[in-house]
């Protein structure tokens, strides 16, 4: 509250970026377990994306930090201080909701100034601060517009400015882009990231869109059934998924049957070293990314092309192996000349360590 008298025209870094910790959070709604003991630490100043399918508990976790939900057990810590029992309006957390959260009876400027008004900041001061924030999100000329006069993307920018108005210690984004169309989503994604980095504010971003999470976040926490599956930087998450769920959920993964033998696996007629955890069984699936699969037209090949789809820079080829497994491969467009549906092909993997998992079917 003491930082409000600052009316400088440049964005100020947050007073000090906060650390957020979730400790053994549990929450049940009747028979459904929303959170089954979530442990997660958000480092100061980072943008952490909570990624997962719907119903995995990511929104519940975010709402607990905002103070709108209360855990059955466990605690939420901000800078080491337990805020589990602090009411939402004293949490010092700015939040952007999925959509339609602007106050319909106030214009954009008053929407942004709402929090300052609640903190009893003087009119002139809060108007200039609100104008400055609108400028920050690129809507300096839209202050007098009412929410219904703004596009979806503009509304979310105003919501972002409103969330930042009180200089919160944490910024919470609850699928803020999911109601917008694809183009707006892309530009706003970049804008949020730029602002977040400029302000250095600790940010939690809930999304079910893996591309969004991977492109924006410093780290991505993948959640499944109320638990944290893996929390890692995007490249690591993609390259070395810790569990089969992460591998399947983040990016596209194909499964190729193989035989495990000690620290190596027999797959597609080669012997490749195993990366990461080694299961205790011998019948395993090798998890491969489409860009790692090599497909070559070969008249004596025992695999068949099932379908091809043009993705722009690459062509995704779906191939059925002799044993019935279907795998997807991304190939540069110029290499796919002879690969029409039904063509005989030869499939191979590069000589690199691979991830394996117990065979599921």
């Amino acid at each position, binding site marked *: 509250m003491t930082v409000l008298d600052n009316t400088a025209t440049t964005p100020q870094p947050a007073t000090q970026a906060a650390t957020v910790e979730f400790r053994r959070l549990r929450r049940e709604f009747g028979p459904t377990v929303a959170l089954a003991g979530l442990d997660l630490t958000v480092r100061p100043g980072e943008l952490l994306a909570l990624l997962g399918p719907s119903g995995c508990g990511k929104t519940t976790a975010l709402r607990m930090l*905002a*103070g*709108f939900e209360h855990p059955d057990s466990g605690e939420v810590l901000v800078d080491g201080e337990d805020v589990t029992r602090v*009411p*939402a*309006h*004293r*949490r010092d*957390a*700015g*939040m952007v*909701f999925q959509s*339609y*959260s*602007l*106050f*319909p*009876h*106030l*214009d954009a400027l008053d929407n942004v100034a*709402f*929090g300052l*008004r*609640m*903190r009893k900041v003087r009119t002139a001061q809060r108007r200039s601060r609100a104008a400055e924030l609108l400028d920050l999100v690129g809507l300096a000329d839209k*202050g*007098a*517009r*009412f929410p219904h*006069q703004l596009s979806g993307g503009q509304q979310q920018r105003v*919501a972002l400015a*409103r*969330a930042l*108005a*009180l200089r919160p210690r944490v910024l*919470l984004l609850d699928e803020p882009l999911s109601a917008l169309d694809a183009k707006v989503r892309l530009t706003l994604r970049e804008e949020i990231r730029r602002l977040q980095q400029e302000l250095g504010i600790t940010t939690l971003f809930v999304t079910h869109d893996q591309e969004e999470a991977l492109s924006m976040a410093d780290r991505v926490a993948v959640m499944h059934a109320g638990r944290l599956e893996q929390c890692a930087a995007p490249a690591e998450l993609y390259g070395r998924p810790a569990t089969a769920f992460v591998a399947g959920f983040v990016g596209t993964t194909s499964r190729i049957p193989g035989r495990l033998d000690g620290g190596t696996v027999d797959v597609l007629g080669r012997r490749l070293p195993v990366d990461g955890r080694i299961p205790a069984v011998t019948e395993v699936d090798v998890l491969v990314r489409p860009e790692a699969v090599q497909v070559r037209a070969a008249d004596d090949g025992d695999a068949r092309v099932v379908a091809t789809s043009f993705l722009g820079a690459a062509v995704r080829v779906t191939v059925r192996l002799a044993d019935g497994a279907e795998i997807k491969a991304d190939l540069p467009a110029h290499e796919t000349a002879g690969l029409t549906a039904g063509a005989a092909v030869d499939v191979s993997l590069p000589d690199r360590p691979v991830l394996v998992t117990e065979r599921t079917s």
Partner: protein
Amino acid sequence: MARLNLWRWAVLGLAGLYFLVPLAASVVFTVDVPGQGVTLDAYTQIFSTGGFGSSPLLSLELAAVTVAVVLLLMVPAMVALRLGSPRLRPVVEVVCSLPLVVPPIAFVAGIGTVLKWGPEQLSRTPLFQTFVAIQNPDFPVVLVLAYVVMALPFVYRALDAGLRSVDVGTLVEAARSCGAGWPQALIRAVLPNLRGALLNASFLTLALVLGEFTVAQLLGFQPFAVWIVNVSGSQAQLSVAVSVLSLLVTWALLLVLAGFGGRTRPTPRG
């Protein structure tokens, strides 16, 4: 298209005739006295009749207090219902609709019984004074209580429609994340977006109270509707003149309310 337009005009014309002919007939009846020509005597007589000032004033006071009480009761209840326990909604809906199925005559009979029974049983307790106070003819609180109950079905429906059109939950959460406590979130973020619904509820309650006759008459009070019937018992022209006047007054009041609602509509700043 032309045929459709013709039909529209025909229906509008018929409806207009249906409403305007009796109204015009009433006006003509009050100003055209056989043998005397056109005269405004009936209207001037109203002003000299005893109670002309006090009974409309009483009705207005009753209406204002009823609107205030019923809104203070229902708005927090409905918002809490929406946010906290949506499962209870059918229960509240049924309870609020009960006054529609209880005839006013039965309702007032019940109130009358309680008002008689109360003082007999409680004559030695301080509650006796309460019973006297709520029946004060200058401002009968008991009428307000009765009208609040009678207005529940209308207020419930008006507020329910308003609450359906805004996402109360998100508005409250957005306000709370902006540092507003519960009362502030309701007053600053939810209520302004329910203005239409609040206005509708006030409208209906106002119309109900201004026109209510049964309860007031049977409990022995004299607000506007009862007064009209009383002063006009003997003079036909006077009674119709009063009715025409009361219609105009009610219209004027509703227009004022509507104007009040429209005037504060947000206008974009330059």
